[in-house]
């Protein structure tokens, strides 16, 4: 069954709201999931697998003192909760500097960074990230001016498991060469995906929709009569 981006976003938004994400954080997390789903990174599946660690456990706080050097221990806390705050922080830290290197340790679901880096390319000229996938293959992505490339690299610096290294710059410096590019995301590919619609896994969609439904106010006779204004003279 085909869904629109709008539907995936709004259903995710209501799901995050139901899981206790505050206003703003729910929008960012929904954007992450909808963007991944649109671009065929199985965002809804990732969310389903993350429910246990985020449902009614929202904690987006980060101690600024923990950010004083270039690495941060996320302690397996989800980027759905902390990702946008971090990217904003690094954007402000980049400021007038030429570039900025950051390492996130104990970072689950590094793919959640992809939508955030893509969005931040409106403000940050160049960024890249490198991490180990579940098969211990080095994954690399770089973003410049709304074009994101994702692929594999080898013979590069070591990346530990559950570690993500991010680089931000006001200039485009060749950092690493792709062995192979597995995915390129541009405004055109996004348009193509919108044209085709989104076909999430049916079971995942049911799970997320059920979460989203927790934001709905249960029906009552009073609500039915008063809530939308009453006075229905439909056969006039």
């Amino acid at each position, binding site marked *: 069954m085909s869904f629109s981006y709008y539907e995936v976003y709004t259903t995710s938004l209501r799901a995050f709201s139901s899981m206790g994400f505050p206003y703003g954080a729910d929008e960012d997390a929904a954007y992450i999931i909808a963007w991944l789903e649109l671009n065929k990174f199985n965002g809804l599946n990732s969310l389903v697998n993350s429910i246990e660690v985020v449902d009614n456990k929202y904690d*987006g706080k980060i101690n600024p003192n923990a950010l004083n050097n270039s690495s941060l221990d996320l302690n397996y806390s989800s980027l759905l909760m902390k990702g946008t705050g971090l990217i*904003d922080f690094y954007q*402000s830290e980049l400021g007038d500097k030429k570039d900025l290197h950051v390492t996130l340790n104990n970072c689950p679901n590094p793919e959640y960074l992809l939508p955030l880096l893509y969005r931040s390319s409106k403000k940050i000229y160049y960024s890249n990230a490198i991490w180990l996938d579940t098969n211990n293959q080095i994954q690399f992505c770089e973003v410049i001016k709304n074009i994101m490339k994702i692929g594999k690299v080898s013979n590069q610096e070591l990346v530990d498991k559950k570690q993500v290294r991010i680089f931000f710059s006001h200039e485009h410096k060749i950092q690493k060469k792709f062995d192979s590019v597995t995915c390129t995301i541009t405004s055109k590919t996004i*348009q193509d995906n919108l044209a085709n619609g989104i076909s999430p896994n049916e079971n995942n969609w049911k799970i997320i929709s059920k979460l989203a439904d927790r934001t709905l*106010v249960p029906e009552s006779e009073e609500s039915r009569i008063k809530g939308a*204004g009453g006075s*229905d003279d439909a056969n006039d």
Partner: protein
Amino acid sequence: MLEKSPTINKSFGYMTLERMGSRYPSRLSFSRSMLRRMKQERWVVDRVKFDLDKVGYGTAIYEINTPNQIYSVVCFSQFIPDEERSDRVIAEKWDTTYAMHIGKISAKDLDRLKKNTPLQEAGRNSPSELVLSRGNKSVRLFKKIVNCLSIGQQPTIEEINDVGYLLRTTAVYGSGKFGLSDFDRTRSATHFDQPFRAEMLAVYIIREFSIHLVEHIAYHQNPSQAVKLDASIKRHIGIGNSTGLGMAPFIIKHPKLIHKWMSQFDKALNEITKIKHIDERKFNKLSSLLKKSKSYLDEVLTTSDYQKTKNKKSFYELDKIIDYCKSIKTSDLKDTRWNDLIKFSEANLSFDAQEIVKVQIIELFPEIADPLAENMSESDDLFIDPSATVNQLINIIENQYQWSIDTNFQDKNNTYLFWYVSEEKLEPRLGERYNEQGAELEQHLGIGKMVSELYHFLKENSAETKNLTIAKFLLIHPEYRGIIRRIQTLTNYPFGEVSDNILAKNTLPLNMLRFKLSFFGASRYDPKSDRWLRVSFFAGAPFYEELNSQNVEDWGFATMNSYQ
């Protein structure tokens, strides 16, 4: 509830609820700009299928040929019992249902749409569909006109004016709802690069269908005597629409878009006020447009005492500006500015009457207004400015949200309402916080309350905190992320925020509905409660077969005399 007079702070410009609820359609409205585009680009509408039985049930398809693309509006008509006819979202059956599809409709697509479109929210659409809609018959006018036509008679224009439409849409969905094409896709891949333009085209075609439907039934009721609707009265038939609370959350959730619409209107007026003298021909036309507006107000019917009072007041107040215009000698026009008329209106007339004067002045300047009407779209993206400081944020709040700071949210009357979505077909509703269940599930629409809470929290913090960047502050307090992003973004979008507390007990949601409907181009406001109303679209507009460069311009504030 309508009779309550909301306490409105008038000091915060255009976006108070009272002013929002005083707006009228203008040249910039989407129905107007859509029809202009239709004329300019010579879109051709063909009825390619009209497979209805004798009583009007079946399928019809209209193809709209634009320069680069064909679009199809498919119409399904079915029987429903009177007791199942409802204007509300919670309805499950409708007399007619519609889908607008990109391209010609194949047999496979028609089969798919036949199964899904009549189900509306419970059905599925594809990214090839732009609009999903439904409409119910106005029982009294529909039957009356069928009966008249079937015996070779015409209804009177007064009978048409009593209702204003044959079919009344109860929802017109687009922009990604229920599987429809996302607006980002629609904007880049179709002719419909302006908000709600596709929806307006669909509504225009539904109006067309309503005429064909009534004439078809009348013919089959009495083939030997039946006649078609006379052109001299047909144009007074618009397409009805019932609108409820869903429009209010839209305004809060799309502040940049709302700013765009308002700023384009404001730009049009600003350009006009720069003109150093008044052209006599335009001046005379304004006088006739103001008189036409008076006739419209005199003729338009509503069951709402609230609306009757507003209309009556505007009707009489327009005499003031008409008299003021009469007092200006032709020889003095070269020393008079349009701004003088606007200033007179602002000093002497109610908001409703002021708006009529403004939209009718804008009417005189297509060269200014029409290009602005082709640029009404705006991204919804909101951004954090992470390098700004907390102190700077406090300054923004003090400069732009004084209305919020001044509101006492400890007073229960100011947090009395909560906006929510019901589990019953996701209908948007409004509850009473201290009397009803569900407030813990309210939508994030109480912007004033959120701003106030943030402001007082920030003020109580230490100087050290106030010197933090927003990026650092949000690391510690991510719960304020949404409201800070909104405040920072809207610094450059002054029309984006409703400058009133919409949780207050005396809030009149109708005001927000009318605001949005005015930009759509709706007329004949007929409130049915404080939370929903009926309106008409395209009342007075030419049908596509008669569309020409003259009548595409002249149909605003249509009256019963407009067609002589």
